[in-house]
């Protein structure tokens, strides 16, 4: 069921996820026309949908802000605008360690950091820097689709180095979450991005998209408009039960990024090997964290065990199951069982 709308309020809106927005990188700013803005805000209000408003380098006009003030919304803004919007979720595009000096220490509840997986930055240093004045950090690897297995192993190494930091927070009773290590700890089922199911995107051209990535990469592939209504062809392919690899997976925190799926495997329901390996490295790091935490925490029953597995890509599990089924089927056909 639809819960919220991602509203791209500026052609040059900041990316908060795996997709790229060249307009943002070039510093372009072109706000959504006021009439479209007004209509989507009304639509969200009528349908009890929360708006997640994506801003670019420049602020909205007073009129935009006035219209927006009447509805439930969250703003996602470039880090440099976070002073103007203390309640917004800032997105920090991490470029180099030199950035530490430019970042002012201020209290932020929820911070998104986008960074390259290659070359891998000192992720531990970044987390250490922010850990005392944020409650939650979401790490997004921008170049996931290009990463080799060696690059991902470097990421795994970084995760292992961060485990003691997160452990310390839990033991000290400090509320801090890091998406790639904390999220899996409490999950008992898939909790993915769910683009096209829980949320859709409204773009400045007045059209709906599955997510902003689809708008920026193929604007002709919209899924309707306010006038035409919503239509997602083959919508079932967004659901877990139509995603064979994800159906056998327990990296429950994985984004299952539909946009990355489409550009890497050409199918909405099929993750790339990189996506699967990354999520499993995070899952396994969460498992290591949990093993360290369990003896010391007060309510270990809140956490579900994360079993040890001997694979990083659940496609292998699926193929083993298929081989087993094939053998079983063959045996049944031959009357052996």
């Amino acid at each position, binding site marked *: 069921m639809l819960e919220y709308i991602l509203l791209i309020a500026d052609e040059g809106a900041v990316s908060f996820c795996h997709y790229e927005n060249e307009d943002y990188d070039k510093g372009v700013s072109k706000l959504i026309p006021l009439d479209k803005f007004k209509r989507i805000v009304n639509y969200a209000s009528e349908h009890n949908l929360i708006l997640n408003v994506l801003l670019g380098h420049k602020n909205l006009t007073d009129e935009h802000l006035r219209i927006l003030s009447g509805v439930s919304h969250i703003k996602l803004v470039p880090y440099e605008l976070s002073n103007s919007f203390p309640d917004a979720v800032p997105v920090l595009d991490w470029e180099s360690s030199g950035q530490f000096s430019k970042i002012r220490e201020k209290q932020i509840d929820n911070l998104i950091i986008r960074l390259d997986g290659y070359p891998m930055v000192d992720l531990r240093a970044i987390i250490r820097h922010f850990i005392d004045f944020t409650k939650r950090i979401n790490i997004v690897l921008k170049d996931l689709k290009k990463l080799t297995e060696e690059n991902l192993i470097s990421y795994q190494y970084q995760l292992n180095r961060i485990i003691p930091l997160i452990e310390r927070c839990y033991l000290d009773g400090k509320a801090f979450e890091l998406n790639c290590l904390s999220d899996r700890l409490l999950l008992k089922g898939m909790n993915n991005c769910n683009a096209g199911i829980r949320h859709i995107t409204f773009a400045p051209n007045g059209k709906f998209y599955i997510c902003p990535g689809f708008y920026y990469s193929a604007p002709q592939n919209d899924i309707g408009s306010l006038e035409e209504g919503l239509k997602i*062809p*083959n919508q079932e*392919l967004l659901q877990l*039960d*139509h*995603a*064979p*690899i994800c*159906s056998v997976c327990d990296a429950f925190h994985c984004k299952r990024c539909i946009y990355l799926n489409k550009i*890497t*495997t*050409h*199918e*909405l*329901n*099929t*993750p*790339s*090997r*990189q996506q699967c390996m990354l999520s499993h490295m995070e899952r396994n790091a969460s498992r290591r964290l949990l093993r360290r935490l369990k003896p010391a925490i007060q309510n270990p029953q809140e956490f579900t065990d994360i079993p040890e597995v001997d694979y990083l890509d659940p*496609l292998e599990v*699926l*193929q083993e*199951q*298929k081989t087993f*089924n*094939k053998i*079983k*089927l063959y045996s*049944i*056909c031959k009357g052996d069982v």
Partner: protein
Amino acid sequence: MVIEKKDFEAAPDWEAGRSKIITFILTEDCQLHCKYCYFVGKNSRNRMSIEIAKRTIDYLLSEPDLFPESSIVLDFIGGEPLLEIDLLDKICDYFKLQSYLKMHTWFGRYRISLSTNGLLYSNESVQRFIRKNKYHLGIGITIDGTRKKHDLQRVFPNGRGSYGQVVKQIPLWLMQFPNSSTKVTIAREDLPYIKESILHLWKLGIKYVNSNLIFENVWKDGDDDILEDQLIQLSDTIIENQYYIGHSCSFFSRLIGKPVISDVNWCGAGKMLAVDSTGSFYPCVRFTPFSLQKKEAIVVGNCYEGIDSNLLRPFLALNLQSQSQKECLECQVASGCAWCQGMNYDEATTDTIYQRSIYLCKMHKARVRANQYFWNKLDKEK
């Protein structure tokens, strides 16, 4: 009468699906213009060069992790592969030599497979190739049944039927490959000739007949009745004359017409690999540009850069559940209901292989009814 297990069984399958199948599309040319052919872009321009073939073989032999199968089938199709018999011969020689030099598992564990229209079968160059590769070779000549049925579809560009020229090749073919099977493809106009065609092929000495209906959206109301009627008539004749001993026809099987018991995909696209004259790799020949009418080809790599394994993942992950409608999953006679992944893709609403076409639904159900009739009657004969 006791029906022996060996009766009415399909032709033996080399390595029973455990091999890697590599399809070389040697040429996009063919002497025939069969009306039901999915190969829509026939031409005499695109012919595979030996360099492309060699690069492909080098790549295959250099990636044992990617191709862990213990044996390989070198499958040659076209167009008509025998138009390029010299090239075909050179490719096989190159494979044999390289697999030996590299001490590859596939040296000696290979099979050469050809599907041909048969027109050039008795040519000396083809016969020389057969003698040379006798112990590793399987050749299927396509003959569709009676002259009437065959010539309805398998015609020269001028519309003349090819039956007369093909049937002449059958005795030599069966002498050289006595356990061969033929594949009968049935389009809508062919339905009234199914019974006589299967019987005719058996009479010609072809013991194993694989038959399938075309997957395209051509079937109309009432076609299912004609199919069922033909198969029931065929059943009666088979049983009356005990043709079930020493023959088979894939229309009848004890395995079809039951609820599905496995989530395994029907089609092998992606587990096999096809390479065309440009050196591009495809999940199977049905994903090449000349086999698709509505969609772009799906290229998963090429002989220069290798395979993009991410593009193969959707094929490797395919299962029944993820591509089927609820109606199909709940169908009580679903087993044996076939589909073609390439056709599904071509017909899908979006660019996906995960949307199963169900044009054959009624025809499958008719086949199931006739199949039940056949086995019930046969079992009563015991």
